[in-house]
């Protein structure tokens, strides 16, 4: 186990290296100067700016300068927000995104597993059909359609939830729901599928034969096994929530990392773009590793039992 974790960590280093290299070189090679404004800057000032940011000389020189800094843990200063280091922006914005993501994730898990299990129990009955139809709809409806519709409904017509912003707990409800729905739907489908499979396995029959109540069979035995594919799905789900949050944060004016990323890509801020890509990738790699370990542990426990 330790060997696997260690190997995965070692493997992550070249991967991150490649990803950051690609991003930085692409952004720098693309036309468009991060410092240009509608009014021309005197060439002397431009030169000075580029020097301050180590963005002068050949692109390879710039790249080496940047990588040198990254290795030392310095993500450089944003060219767009000139008084802020990229690390500082990420430090402020990442927890916000993480909060939103975590809430959405737990919502998706809770509702997904509950509805999925419920559908499995009522296999092929109306309830099952209805839930599965809703789940398919949840997968199919893009969050950027759902979000404006929900805002229209709950924030404008019913006026029960705030339309946008961040800072009080009620402001997280709509964005978290919008973000979580496709994943809740996928988890519901996964849960139903795997639970149906598990319920046909021998050990469930044994449990039933032993006279355990249907609830006990379901919750104490079957669900524990059926949860495995959901753990397996948590990696892709995290990736989906991460990209989904970019849209949700933009729509709801949430000070997370998503709007900064889109802005930096459009404004040719090489440090911000590379920094965000680095953080996103590291986060996902780490998350996948944790999910894999969890899978391994649960799987082994299930087998041992």
């Amino acid at each position, binding site marked *: 186990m330790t060997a696997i974790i260690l190997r995965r960590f070692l*493997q992550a280093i070249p*991967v991150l290296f490649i*990803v950051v290299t*690609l*991003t930085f070189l*692409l*952004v720098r*090679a*693309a*036309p*468009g100067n991060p410092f240009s404004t509608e009014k021309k800057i005197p060439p002397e000032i431009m030169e000075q700016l580029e020097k301050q940011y180590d963005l002068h000389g050949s692109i390879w020189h710039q790249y080496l300068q940047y990588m040198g800094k990254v290795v030392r843990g310095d993500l450089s200063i944003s060219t767009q927000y000139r008084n802020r280091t990229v690390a500082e922006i990420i430090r402020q914005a990442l927890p916000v995104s993480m909060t939103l993501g975590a809430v959405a994730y737990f919502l998706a898990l809770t509702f997904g597993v509950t509805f999925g299990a419920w559908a499995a129990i009522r296999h092929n009955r109306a309830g099952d059909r209805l839930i599965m139809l809703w789940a*398919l*709809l949840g*997968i*199919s*409806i*893009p969050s*950027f*359609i759902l*979000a*404006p*519709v929900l*805002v*229209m409904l709950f924030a*404008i017509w019913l006026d029960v939830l705030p339309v946008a912003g961040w800072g009080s707990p009620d402001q997280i409800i709509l964005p978290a729901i919008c973000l979580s729905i496709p994943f809740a739907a996928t988890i519901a489908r996964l849960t139903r599928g795997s639970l149906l*499979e598990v319920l046909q396995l021998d050990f469930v029959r044994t449990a039933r034969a032993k006279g355990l109540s249907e609830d006990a069979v379901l919750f104490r035995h079957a669900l524990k096994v059926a949860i495995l594919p959901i753990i397996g799905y948590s*990696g*892709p789900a995290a*990736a989906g929530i*991460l*990209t989904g949050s*970019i*849209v949700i944060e*933009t*729509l709801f004016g949430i000070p997370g990392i998503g709007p900064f*990323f*889109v802005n930096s*890509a*459009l404004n040719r801020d090489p440090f911000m*773009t590379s920094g*965000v*890509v680095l953080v*996103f*990738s590291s986060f*996902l*790699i780490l*998350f*996948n590793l944790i999910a894999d370990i969890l899978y391994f542990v649960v799987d082994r426990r299930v087998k041992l039992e």
Partner: protein
Amino acid sequence: MKTAHLFYRVVRRDPFLVACGLFLILVVLVSFVGIHFTGYTYDQISDDSLLRPSRAHWFGTDVNGHDLLTRTLYGAQISLFVAATGTLVSLTVGVTYGMISGYAGGRVDNLMMRIVEIIYSLPTLVLVIVIVTSLDDPMTTFLKSTGEWCTGLGLPGLAGFFTGINPRLLLIVGFLGLTEWLTMARIIRGQVLVLKEQPFVQASFALGQSHFQILWRHLLPNLLGIVIVYLTLTIPAIMLDESFMSFLGVGLQPPLASWGTLISDAAFLINPIRLYWWMLIFPGGLMTLTLLALNFLGDGLRDALDPRVKK
């Protein structure tokens, strides 16, 4: 013919699937043929901006006075085109990759699957955004100079082809296709691993057929069913990715319009003063229905055709 037979069985068993299929065919037909009968062209402006749906404009109009029905159908064309060609790219890459990996086996297989795993754990869509926004202009220049080069060679047809391509569209189709092949590759590989041990493949080995012949003649036809299943599931994924990018303003740009750009125009108009609901509901609704039909179809086909799914 096994596939055709199975297909027939699916149709018999679940008429709703057929309805989904028919709906999709209808969307394609209307968006490519019906669009010529709306009475408007997609780039025709008028003074009637932001009109509600009426007899003259079934879906209403947008800011420029475009007929929204024609716009939505045009958006459908682009969205469907992006999804279809992107899927084709992902299909080619995924099937080739999966077949090679599964067929080669051993260390090659190990390495190739490790790479898939790594790409799985990367924020691919974020990378596509970086790539598309950066390569847009270089691609424009490249296509233009290639076109000029072809003209120089005396190939006006080819030149017209290159200059006619929208660089942004090309990049999006290409790179979205290159991110959505992972599932396909994994599943194909799994199938090839099984098929490889089958007697008829073993027999071909013994007969001394070349690797290419075995892959092409014996393995590929047997993978067709599963390829179709994952094809129907990749199309909505790419469609969603494209609209996601267009929505954020890093995807397609005018004069091209896709469902994503239309919905983006509308989503930023949701406000307490006046609701231009038709701008959101029509393109959004049609897109959701299309995605739903595709997902439903993919699901149903998977249940019927994927040997991994137990019935």
